[in-house]
């Protein structure tokens, strides 16, 4: 049972969920709901096709359907994050707290694409299948996500004290 292919993807699903929703417990709830669907629908998966993309597609659907309805809760949690003093940084040496905060400042659809490419290291094609959007849309969202991140991080590095990003 431990060797079931679905279980091999659980650590990656947890990493993605954590990055996507921020809160640890909400993230594991998202993983659990995703796994329930994956187990129930496993007979629909075509052997030989990309299981990771299939499971990330399920998580995307669960996220869209369920987590967005809890948006206000997540945003409230964000506002409770303590303000941190911003230290001077070199251009390539980023404060991780600034980066995470900037990530929260992205629209969901941009955050999903950026995480699949930058953290999950999917190809554009794999991300396209996981999110059920054309590759061209992956590219444009990726470009917008990276640029928005850059501006949010740059803003955080200049502002003292740091203001919560919108």
């Amino acid at each position, binding site marked *: *049972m*431990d060797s079931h292919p679905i*279980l091999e993807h*659980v*650590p*990656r699903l*947890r*990493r993605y969920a*954590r*990055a996507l929703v921020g809160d640890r*417990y*909400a993230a*594991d*709830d998202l*993983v*659990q709901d995703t*796994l*329930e*669907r994956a*187990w*129930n629908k496993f007979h629909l998966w075509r052997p030989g096709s990309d299981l990771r993309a299939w499971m990330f597609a399920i998580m995307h659907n669960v996220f869209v359907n369920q987590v967005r309805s809890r948006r206000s809760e997540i945003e409230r949690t964000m506002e409770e994050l303590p303000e941190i003093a911003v230290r001077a940084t070199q*251009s*390539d*040496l*980023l404060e*991780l707290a600034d*980066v*995470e905060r*900037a*990530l929260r400042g992205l629209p969901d659809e941009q955050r999903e694409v*950026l*995480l699949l*490419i*930058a*953290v999950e290291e999917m*190809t*554009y094609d794999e991300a396209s299948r996981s999110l059920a959007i054309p590759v061209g849309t992956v*590219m444009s969202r*990726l*470009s917008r996500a*990276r*640029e928005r*991140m*850059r501006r949010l*991080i740059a803003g955080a590095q200049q502002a003292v004290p740091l203001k919560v990003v919108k």
Partner: protein
Amino acid sequence: MTQVNEDDLQAYVDGVLVAARRTGVETYLAERPEEAERLRAYRAQDAALRAIFDPVLAEPVPPTLAERPARRRWRTYALAASLLVAGIGVGWIGRGMVPPLVSASPSFARSAAIAHAVYAPEVRHPVEVGADQEDHLVKWLSKRVGTDLRVPKLGSLGFDLVGGRLLSGPQGPVAQFMYQDPKGQRLTLYISAQKGEGRGDTAFRFSQEDRVSVFYWIDDHYGYALSGELRRDALLAVANAVYKQLNP
């Protein structure tokens, strides 16, 4: 030279640009330091994201995610529902509307089994107050249940306290303590005051409520029920340990 577009630049950041176009991008960037700086920033923030979230890969996976959760959850919720229906049946018998044909298991054990089946599968909120606030938990539940509660330590049997919650039982407030072993197997200890008949001390009694095994007993006007999806002999060992600690 073919024109460089934004998709080329993104692919360059990701290191997946085909060699033929990479040369073009490098020439383009050599002439535009601001663009080169922008792409460097993208790479740095991508690397920062990995630095933030890669540690999640090394975390132990919670037991509830490391097995088939759907079946387990479905099973336990269905179990709670079936116990509830059976419990309603017992209530009718108890009110004399239907003559008791079989001796039903006492409602106390059944209530404990239902509470176990409802809360043991919870991922996010298995308890109201966690073991990290054990003093507060014990004071609070003692006050509500009306006696000085003690929380048995079951670490030597492999079960650590997760925490506890306050429940409403047939005879008033109930304290439920939850324990968990490293495999994620959970036990609950259900404690409430016993009023009216059947309040005298009893020996251990055993009840099997579908998959939930329950050992229960009454001690000094308080009822105790230990529930878990364990074999009878394994649960008995824990019940003995609980009893000994509560009656030193």
